[in-house]
């Protein structure tokens, strides 16, 4: 790393107005609803109460402060964690305030929050036992403290709505909070069973809504500190390319430019947050840095990877469709041989494609780091707030005990901010360390999209043979995807997730996959893998059903016989959607079902297609089976959001790869759904309540693209086997 310093002077900041949201608690109560509060900067909120355990404190006035170790990226974590603890603790919801937990304490003192990442639609389904346990444990310790003072058995003490009672004795939780903090239980209590809840299961407004309607909610990119320096960055346009030289002479003498910092990739460090070659211009304002950066000329060496494009990838995929791959699932007899021997008139073969997609969270990739000799502070939009501590400790060789995360709201994440998915935190740390000023690095939208960790493209060929009853006798698929360095999976995503493990009862089946060694860094993405592959399998089974003379919904019921979660979704979908294949030309309904993050979700799309091929997605009916749910309001919002998320990609999105990099890197060319394109979304729940919990944040998306494509088929007679769907001519056949 080389650095060219220029004069640093403290930037005079004109402050004529009080900071909007300077750490105060907003006293706003949601009308006509149980309400709690959250501050615009929830990491600054002080508490003077007794700490019963790491998760909560109780103030003398009865205020319960719940420390949430997760991030709030729009999925409702602050509210969900707080409500699960309040349920067990049994305190009035109005007495609860939520703050973000101290990550320095977590990392350095035994990781008592167990899990701090917020991803994988797992907070409630997988973590509710230990979160609710924290509330239950605090409640029982309060009861024990009161029991000892009153000379009775703990079982004789009732704890309800912040009050402890037995016989004639009663006291507030606050009165025994200090004593409870000293109690050790012989045995931790069990958590409440579903159905015993007084708070969970109700429509609970999100705590973070009020601070998000007046500009006060603090995001990482909003961090403004006295003496701050700002950096704009040009990363190697082709991932892991080499910076040969650059000419920055055009920036000489420009006002406010403080220096240029060169970043270099290090041998053997190819992880998602490791440095790649690039340049940062550091200035006293971000816009000055960005304008100067645009004046710099670069010479890069991209090697052979600078030749890769969508066309070269397609050629590779088509070649690999004829090469045996790794078997991901096989059952029954020789499916490939049976299909080859079958009457060609009874065989269906189709090829599908999904392109690269990007997270494009509305908050561009950024980080602020303030390095001093005594301590380091960081503001980072990451889904794991403990991750920046480890990343900065690694980058600067500092002790994790000296690094503090100021947990901020995230301007979206969607699987793309998983604990340091880019080098931006390292870049900010390097700059702050060198300049000894707080440093904020913001990537332009173009850098954000080109250098995000993308969703890998998929190319899949499927074949099936049909029997006399019109149902498949044999099924074969061969999937090719392009993950970074040939990864086998990103979280649940694989080349053929939802295809190779499809629950349909194919009597003979074989599924193969190729993990191509892709040069574009890839990662998880809301609904990873299933969002792509449900588009494929759920259209292919419609092809099979229609070829075999079956109604698509009846086909799915028949092919999932005995599978209770799927049967429940399908029968409910039939009831609530009015699905029919009997609409006039130009109108269509289509269905899709997918299993994602432990939930089964079905969708029915209603579309109209005009004579010139203009598509309107009028309505999406979603039926969700997550086993259970704790907040129907937030659940509906998450499902609706996930529908828009995936239809954005399926209808409009699609990154285009050319010369080793992406060419549509802003919202004028990477198109996402807008309000006039958003369908009405009607959400229904069909919960098995059978001992298993599914996720809520992601499963709404996967069934939708196929539902829309199947509806387009019924409206037009055209089968749309690749996305973005609007790139196809939809003029009715």
């Amino acid at each position: 790393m080389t650095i060219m310093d220029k004069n640093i002077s403290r930037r005079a900041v004109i402050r004529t107005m009080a900071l909007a949201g300077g750490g105060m608690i907003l006293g706003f109560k949601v009308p006509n609803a149980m309400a709690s509060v959250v501050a615009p900067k929830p990491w600054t909120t002080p508490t003077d109460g007794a700490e019963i355990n790491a998760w909560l404190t109780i103030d003398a006035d009865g205020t319960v402060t719940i420390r949430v170790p997760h991030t709030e990226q729009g999925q409702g974590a602050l509210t969900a964690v707080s409500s699960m603890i309040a349920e067990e603790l049994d305190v009035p919801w109005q007495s609860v305030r939520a703050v973000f937990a101290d990550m320095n304490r977590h990392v350095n003192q035994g990781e008592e929050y167990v899990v701090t990442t917020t991803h994988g639609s797992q907070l409630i389904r997988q973590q509710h036992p230990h979160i609710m346990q924290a509330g239950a444990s605090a409640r029982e310790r309060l009861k024990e403290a009161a029991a000892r003072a009153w000379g009775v058995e703990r079982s004789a003490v009732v704890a309800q709505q912040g009050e402890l009672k037995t016989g004639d004795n009663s006291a507030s939780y606050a009165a025994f909070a200090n004593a409870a903090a000293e109690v050790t239980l012989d045995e931790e209590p069990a958590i409440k069973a579903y159905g015993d809840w007084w708070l969970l299961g109700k429509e609970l407004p999100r705590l973070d809504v009020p601070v998000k309607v007046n500009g006060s909610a603090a995001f990482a990119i909003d961090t403004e500190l006295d003496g701050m320096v700002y950096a704009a960055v040009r990363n190697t346009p082709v991932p892991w390319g080499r910076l040969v030289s650059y000419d920055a002479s055009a920036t000489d003498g420009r006002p406010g430019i403080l220096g240029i910092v060169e970043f270099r990739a290090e041998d053997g460090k190819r992880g998602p947050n490791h440095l790649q070659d690039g340049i940062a211009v550091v200035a006293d304002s971000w816009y000055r840095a960005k304008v100067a950066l645009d004046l710099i000329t670069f010479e890069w060496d991209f090697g052979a990877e600078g030749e890769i494009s969508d066309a070269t990838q397609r050629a590779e995929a088509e070649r690999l469709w004829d090469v045996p791959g790794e078997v991901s699932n096989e059952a029954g007899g020789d499916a490939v041989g049976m299909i080859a021997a079958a009457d060609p008139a009874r065989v269906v073969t189709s090829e599908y494609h999904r392109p690269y997609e990007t997270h494009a969270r509305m908050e561009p990739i950024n980080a602020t780091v303030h390095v001093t000799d005594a301590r380091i502070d960081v503001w980072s939009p990451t889904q794991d707030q403990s991750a920046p501590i480890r990343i900065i400790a690694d980058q600067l060789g500092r002790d994790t005990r000296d690094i503090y995360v100021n947990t901020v709201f995230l301007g979206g994440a969607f699987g793309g901010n998983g604990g340091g998915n880019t080098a931006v935190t390292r870049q900010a740390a390097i700059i702050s360390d060198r300049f000894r000023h707080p440093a904020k690095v913001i990537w332009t939208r173009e850098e954000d999209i080109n250098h995000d960790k993308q969703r890998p493209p998929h190319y899949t060929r499927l074949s099936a043979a049909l029997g006399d009853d019109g149902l498949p006798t044999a099924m074969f698929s061969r999937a090719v995807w392009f993950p970074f360095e040939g990864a086998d999976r990103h979280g649940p995503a694989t080349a053929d997730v939802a295809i190779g493990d499809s629950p349909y009862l194919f009597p003979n089946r074989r599924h193969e996959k190729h993990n191509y060694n892709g040069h574009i860094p890839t990662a998880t993405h809301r609904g990873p893998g299933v969002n792509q592959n449900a588009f494929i399998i759920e259209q292919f089974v419609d092809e099979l059903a229609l070829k075999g003379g079956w109604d698509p919904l009846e086909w799915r019921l028949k092919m999932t016989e005995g599978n209770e979660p799927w049967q429940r979704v399908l029968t409910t979908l039939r009831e609530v959607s009015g699905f029919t294949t009997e609409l006039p030309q130009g109108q269509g309904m289509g269905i899709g079902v997918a299993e994602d993050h432990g939930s089964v979700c079905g969708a029915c799309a209603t579309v109209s297609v005009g004579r010139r091929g203009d598509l309107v997605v009028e309505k999406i009916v979603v039926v969700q089976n997550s086993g259970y749910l704790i907040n129907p309001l937030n659940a509906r919002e998450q499902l609706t959001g996930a529908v828009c998320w995936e239809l954005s990609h399926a209808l409009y999105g699609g990154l285009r790869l050319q010369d080793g990099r992406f060419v549509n890197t802003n919202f004028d060319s990477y198109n996402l759904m807008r309000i006039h394109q958003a369908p009405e979304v009607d959400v229904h729940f069909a919960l098995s309540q059978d001992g298993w919990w599914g996720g809520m944040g992601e499963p709404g998306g996967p069934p939708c693209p196929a539902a829309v494509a199947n509806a387009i088929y019924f409206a037009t007679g055209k089968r749309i086997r690749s996305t973005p769907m609007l790139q196809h001519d939809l003029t009715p056949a």
Partner: protein
Amino acid sequence: MLLTFTVNGTAHEVDADPETPLLWVLREKLRLTGTKFGCGIAECGACSVHVDGQLVKSCSVNVAAVVGREVTTIEGLSPNSMHALQRAWIEESVPQCGYCQSGQIMAAASLLERSPNPSDSEIDAAMSGNLCRCGTYGQIRRAIHRAAEISQA
């Protein structure tokens, strides 16, 4: 260069390069960070503010162009978050991540100034310049209708 303009009712004299987009002056010089950077090319609407009552994308307006004019940001839309839109946004539980919502509300406020009881197609036309990656469009539509009711009550 010293530039003088009014923001949320208060006169400011700011030292900035005249070609700097208003967005960055609001955020860095005035620390009004409710107005967001999203794309820099007036495609996402996260930076929406009002200049003399007109909706503008502040990422694409030079600060020199607002000299002598009145700028309103989300922080100045109302005292105490009590604008009908802010109340409706809370009632309808609109925000998820919240990053785009300042711009959504400023665009909706401009719409309600022109059309106090807008139709769905007016909402489509007025709000299509504002992206929401969380997909809160249905809630936004309901909240605008609700705000119209609140305003006319």
